[in-house]
């Protein structure tokens, strides 16, 4: 058993209207991974932000290696040996990958000029360790979200601290990168680092963590050894009750096609053809960079189409903007809630209704009572944890923000709903609620295109699955046929072909 490196005691923290943490304790051990679990809004990120100098605690103390310490600011935290990968990306979009990795601790020569080549080389090494192929001189806004996440990880690792906090690091990653990350975590354990690991994917907890700490409603519930606990019990600690089956798949018997895409081609995707039945969930799987998000956005009218056509309920459609797509019954929920999904400066209610304001129009202005009522319905329906509907979205926990984005899309009552990584950052209970919603949508005769990097989710909830790679469709599987091996086979075969052709 590892030595206790970190100890947090009696930590409390309040925000206006919310007691985010209430007398919480938390430990981390040398050479071990401590999972920090809890529902959305339980206070996980807040606790870690206190530890990493972002927030100041109201009460309590922090001991590192037995010595009490105050963490004044983020820099102070990593100077004292605590590094964190935040839940939300914190990169500077216009700076390059290596510039971001070394931000705040750039290497300079004796003449105080930057050692650019050296830093590029070091960045490359760090990225190589993570087995990701990223040119360190590319700007952050030129690489995909998943790669950005890998850059964040590389950045945290480069600090070489004794405590490393990872707040939902696998959120934007596909299985391939997750495996790589886990390899790295194992190396870190061997190096006797203490790791804090936050995730809503319980499978990962059993794979990589040694212990779990569970928070509920800002309170400490329990600390346990992973070897002595099972999934059901963890869920019970988190939610306070047991949950039944995780994937409540509902079979619908329809044959009518509502939406068809034929030979869709543009800058991002090539020759995409598929059709979607009424009441069907079509899963789209693929590796990071497969162009799935781009496909979703192309359909949504955000990118121009070079060739091909789309047919909705028998009629050929063309959308010059998302507005037109929404008006025609197609809605897209972005994978990147912070920069594309939500207006963080606006309140919960205004975000939920933003795409559907026509519903609240009346002679003079908006029917705010109705707006309030309907937003409140959605808040309850998908259990958005917020003190009021007028809370700014930026003050919600990550998972609750995601729920707001989904509520917004549902309110438009789309015929075809495109969900891009819909359960990213959402807790087990809420996931279940969203899956139930999928079933409601299906029953109402609407259809869903679900882009997801979470294999169990794709396998568990899709009626059919399309596998994409490098902007093209590589295969299609029915629910019955699909297994994670088969999906990976489509991709791996492609990858091997590509490597072979490169060699020859």
């Amino acid at each position: 058993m590892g030595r206790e490196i970190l100890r947090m005691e009696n930590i409390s923290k309040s925000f206006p209207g919310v007691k985010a943490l209430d007398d919480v304790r938390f430990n981390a051990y040398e050479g071990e991974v401590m999972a920090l679990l809890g529902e959305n809004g339980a206070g996980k990120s807040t606790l870690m932000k206190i530890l990493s100098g972002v927030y100041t605690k109201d009460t309590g103390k922090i001991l590192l290696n037995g010595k009490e310490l105050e963490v004044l600011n983020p820099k102070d935290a990593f100077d004292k040996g605590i590094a964190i990968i935040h839940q939300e990306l914190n990169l500077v979009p216009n700076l390059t990958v290596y510039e971001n990795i070394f931000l705040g601790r750039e290497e300079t020569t004796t003449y105080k000029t930057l050692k650019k080549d050296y830093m590029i080389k070091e960045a490359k090494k760090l990225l190589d360790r993570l087995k990701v192929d990223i040119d360190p001189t590319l700007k952050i806004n030129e690489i995909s979200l998943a790669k950005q996440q890998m850059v964040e990880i590389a950045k945290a690792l480069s600090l070489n601290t004794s405590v490393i906090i990872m707040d939902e690091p696998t959120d934007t990653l596909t299985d391939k990168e997750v495996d790589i990350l886990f390899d790295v975590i194992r190396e870190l354990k061997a190096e006797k680092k203490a790791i804090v690991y936050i995730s809503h994917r319980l499978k990962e907890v059993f794979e990589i963590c040694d212990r779990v700490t569970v928070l509920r409603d800002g309170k400490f519930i329990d600390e346990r050894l992973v070897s002595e606990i099972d999934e059901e019990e963890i869920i019970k600690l988190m939610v306070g009750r047991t949950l039944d089956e995780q994937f409540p798949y509902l079979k619908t018997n329809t044959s009518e096609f509502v939406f068809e895409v034929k030979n869709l081609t543009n800058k991002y995707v090539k020759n995409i053809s598929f059709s979607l039945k009424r009441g069907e969930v079509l899963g789209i799987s693929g590796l990071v960079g497969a162009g799935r998000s781009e496909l979703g956005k192309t359909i949504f009218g955000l990118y121009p189409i070079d060739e091909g056509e789309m047919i909705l309920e028998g009629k050929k459609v063309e959308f010059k903007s998302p507005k037109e797509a929404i008006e025609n019954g197609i809605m897209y929920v972005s994978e990147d809630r912070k920069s594309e999904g939500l207006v963080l400066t606006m309140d919960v209610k205004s975000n939920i209704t933003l795409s559907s304001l026509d519903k609240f129009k009346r002679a003079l202005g908006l029917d705010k009572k109705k707006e309030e009522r309907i937003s409140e319905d959605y808040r309850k329906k998908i259990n958005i944890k917020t003190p009021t509907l007028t809370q700014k979205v930026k003050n919600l926990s990550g998972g609750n923000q995601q729920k707001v984005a989904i509520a917004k899309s549902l309110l438009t009552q789309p015929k075809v709903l495109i969900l891009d990584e819909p359960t990213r950052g959402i807790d087990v209970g809420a996931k279940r609620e969203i899956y139930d919603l999928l079933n409601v949508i299906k029953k109402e005769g609407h259809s869903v295109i679900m882009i997801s990097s979470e294999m169990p989710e794709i396998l568990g909830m899709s009626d059919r699955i399309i596998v994409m790679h490098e902007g093209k469709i590589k295969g299609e599987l029915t629910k019955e046929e699909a297994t994670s091996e088969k999906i990976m086979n489509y991709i791996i075969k492609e990858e091997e072909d590509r490597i072979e052709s490169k060699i020859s």
Partner: protein
Amino acid sequence: MKAKLAKAKPFLGLVLIVIVVSILSPNFFTKDNLLTVLRQTSINAIIAAGMTFVILTAGIDLSVGSILGFSGAICAYLLTNGTNVILAFLAAVLVGAVFGLFNGVVITKGKVQPFIATLATMILLRGATMVFTNGKPIAVKGESATNTLRYIARGEILGIPVAVVMMIVVFIICYHILHNTKYGRHVYAVGGNEQAALLSGVNTDRVKMLAYMISGILASIAGIIVLSRLSSAQPTAGDGYELDAIAAVVLGGTSLAGGQGMILGTVVGAMIIGILNNALNLLDVQSYYQMIVRAIVILIAVLLDRKDKNK
């Protein structure tokens, strides 16, 4: 709305200024003088109301002063040539709308930064005004025209100066648009996160174009008030007004980064500026020292606001 006004940003600062000035100058807190202050403030306040829309979308409009000048000149010209008063006013407003839209188009379709686009319009229209007036003021002649102008400048409705009534109406409408309509919601969304607004089905270009149009229209209405106050259109009218308007908006707590702020804050901001100007005159502060006092009071007002917020 009253509660919200109290929440409006530098409200505390405004109250303090009023108290201090009232104590220092016996002439200040009289009905007449307060109406005078309101009348003086109306011009900047109306421009600032339009500017609030633009700034909420994360833009800026430097052209308001020139639009004011140009539409005033057009209006004076038409009036002097016997055009019907209503038509002349409509023409002025049309000028504001057209050049506001022009700004909007250059910014959205031309993808030019608002600062540069409206700077160009500012210079362009000042030049156009000079060419149009040949650099000379146009004094409005004609009985009906001068009467109407005098009414706007000096007339009263229920004891309240006409210009002040205009300002109140403008603010009620703007408040309504920003807080109770779809368009208003979209203004905040575009300023808060343009990409997210776009993906939520907001026609972001249209939202911005309209904001600049509103700004242009309100600048031209302010132009009519200036025209009526002076009974003549000055070729340099409105020069530098953009700064006062932006200051009123920002003083009112609206962020230049967009998406955050309130039109009521703009009222407060404009009032602070207006009262300061009036008070410094009443207190007979020497003109050079006026600048120094003005700067310090503005700083104190925003700093007070901030302290208030942190509690």
